[in-house]
């Protein structure tokens, strides 16, 4: 019978260390932490919504969320949402740049992911207060710590596994996104991974991707720099959907997404000891934190023409995130250079019409 694996402090450390190869460090009186550079940590913080310790914020945490960086509400649609762009005139509002302007510590120093187990909110608060004292005693900077709260009920950790899936598939040269806008009435996939060969090759060529990457990585180029990556591998187009659960042993609702025939593979993401289902593969972990990927016994019903059409929308969606590397005045200049109106509708028209390569070149020229 399927049995959920209990998520603990040690298991989180093991998943990040043994599963994803991030180094671990022991800090006096605080314990084991996972070490990430500032860029990886920012991706981690945004995808998981786990907060940086920050005494100036409520609950002493500065929390960023994937939902802060929204662009569209639905797939195959270009209805702009408040998030990266403002709905009140053409303006970049929530970008990696604006966040770093607000909190400079996001960009500097190595960061430490520290899991904290708790059974109630008050216990979490008191553990954080104690931790803050200890960090001060150690002469360290609290802003370098990101807290991964683990509730006794295993709940609230879906976003952690979204991050794990994202990193695993980024390293397989996929573009990933979490909580991606999808179709009205179908729901929102927890994670989607895309290999769109021509776009990935261009992103790598112009330094926007180091292999694969998440949407957050695409937005982070102006803050953290371009990459230098080359590969002889020519990826084949592929799209995969994932549904994450941490409190139940199966997730049949993933069938809602596979029914769209966009995805050629599907995985349930559950910390569980079981075989994969017929309708989807299983992405899980063992007690040592190693990643286990089991394929479904039946193939997913998929149509290449539907996938292609969807990828056309994804291309524009990606362009919008690439534009988040600019500042508002740079964006205005870019639009006027290409004879587009300086407005949100001009922005959408621009993203629809400019070629992917030309856009990458333009942004690269601005950044260099």
């Amino acid at each position: 019978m399927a049995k959920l694996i209990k998520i603990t402090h040690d298991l989180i450390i093991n998943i990040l260390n043994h599963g994803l190869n991030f180094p671990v460090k022991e800090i006096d009186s605080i314990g084991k932490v996972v070490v990430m550079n500032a860029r990886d940590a920012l991706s981690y913080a945004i995808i998981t919504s786990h907060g940086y310790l920050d005494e100036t914020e409520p609950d002493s945490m500065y929390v960023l969320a994937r939902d802060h960086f929204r662009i569209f509400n639905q797939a195959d649609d270009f209805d702009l949402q408040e998030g990266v762009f403002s709905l009140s005139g053409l303006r970049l509002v929530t970008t990696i740049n604006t966040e770093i302007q607000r909190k400079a510590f996001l960009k500097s120093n190595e960061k430490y992911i520290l899991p904290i187990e708790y059974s109630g909110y008050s216990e979490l608060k008191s553990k954080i207060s104690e931790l803050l004292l200890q960090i001060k005693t150690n002469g360290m900077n609290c802003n370098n710590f990101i807290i991964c709260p683990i509730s006794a009920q295993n709940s609230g950790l879906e976003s952690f596994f979204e991050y794990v899936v994202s990193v695993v598939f980024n390293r397989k040269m996929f573009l990933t996104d979490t909580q991606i806008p999808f179709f009205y009435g179908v729901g929102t996939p927890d994670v989607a991974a895309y290999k769109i060969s021509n776009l990935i090759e261009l992103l790598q060529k112009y330094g926007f991707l180091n292999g694969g990457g998440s949407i957050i990585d695409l937005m982070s180029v102006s803050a953290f720099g371009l990459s230098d990556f080359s590969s002889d591998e020519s990826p084949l187009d592929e799209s995969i959907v994932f549904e994450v659960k941490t409190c139940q042993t199966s997730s049949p609702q993933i069938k809602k997404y596979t029914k769209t025939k966009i995805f050629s593979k599907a995985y349930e993401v559950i910390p569980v000891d079981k075989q994969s289902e017929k309708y989807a593969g299983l992405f899980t972990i063992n007690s040592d934190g190693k990643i286990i990927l089991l394929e479904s016994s039946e193939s997913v019903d998929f149509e290449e023409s539907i996938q292609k059409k969807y990828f056309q929308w994804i291309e524009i969606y990606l362009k919008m995130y690439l534009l988040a590397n600019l500042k508002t005045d740079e964006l205005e200049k870019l639009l006027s250079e290409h004879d587009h109106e300086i407005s949100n509708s001009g922005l959408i028209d621009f993203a629809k019409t400019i070629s992917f390569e030309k856009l990458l070149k333009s942004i690269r020229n601005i950044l260099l």
Partner: protein
Amino acid sequence: MSKSDAILKKQLDNTIGSPGNLKRRRFISGSNQDQHLWKDGGLTFGINGVSYGSCDFAWYTEDSWVDPFDNQTYSEKPQLVVEATDALNTRSFGDAQVQRIHHGLGSFRCNVDTVYWLRSVDDSERLQEYVPGTAYFLTDFYQKQGLTSSYLVTTNLEDIRELVELLGNGGNQSEKYKKKKKEILQKMHDYFFNFLQKEYDGNWIRYLAGEQIFKTFENKWVKIMPGVRKQNWLDSSKRGGHIFVSKTIASKYLLIGSNLFDPTKNTLNILWPLMPRADYDEINISKPNDKEWRLLTKVENANTRIVTNDEIIGLSDIQKKGVNSLQNANLNRAPFKTNKNKLMREITSGLISGRITLN
């Protein structure tokens, strides 16, 4: 939490912050802590052991406060609570605007100033007039009974920023803060009454009829709610309960605001024509602790009475068949939508003419 909630909270964080000695309470993402009571560190308020819906954001001070939920004293005093929605910008039509109004009702009834913020931008949907109207009449009604809090509705973040700024600088007893509250209340009043005047020549009866609120031949006030069925309450994927509670509250306070209804002696019959009494009883047994069900049937039920299909007298056999055929149908699709609308028109005209009565 919806995806847009995270953005709204971020806007409140970034635009307003924590002026003066105010502190913020809000939960950005991946947490259900907002569903806990205020006393337990959450953003849910309640009275006499019954909780209302959870809110999105609060500014508080470190002062003692007697929580009406359990009449105990706690060390954090809520000063201004915000329930926020992006319903004007997400192409959510119908009842999306009103469906969260009962969330803020809890804090308001705990005598805490409460703002229902429906964020507006250049091309947002029109704010439905009955949303500020309901909150205005709620405020008027409860202030006459001794509350000092206001239930404010705004589409403008600047209103909240100013309120919090004034609160942080001078506290909730400062004249400037009180004046700002009055100014927002006046805007809500004007928004509603300008609409009533412009669209209905100030005629409340016609306006209420458009909201399916009317008086029967027997002088009973009725609000018809055509869509209420068992599955709306028992299927967790449907948010029916939210809409029905909010629509019931809105109907009652609009009626009170019309001055056609005397809350000291009148009752508003909330008619659920597609719901048999047996289904009502089943929900009552199977979901006694459902927040919305409790609010509707046990807490916010003063001056209201829920009337099911079994209490309708005088339906023809064809109409009864119509009721049966709609009980499990998708009411938003043809032909059921048309059939439902026709049946509701017949029930309404029957109740007005006296051909149909309510037991």
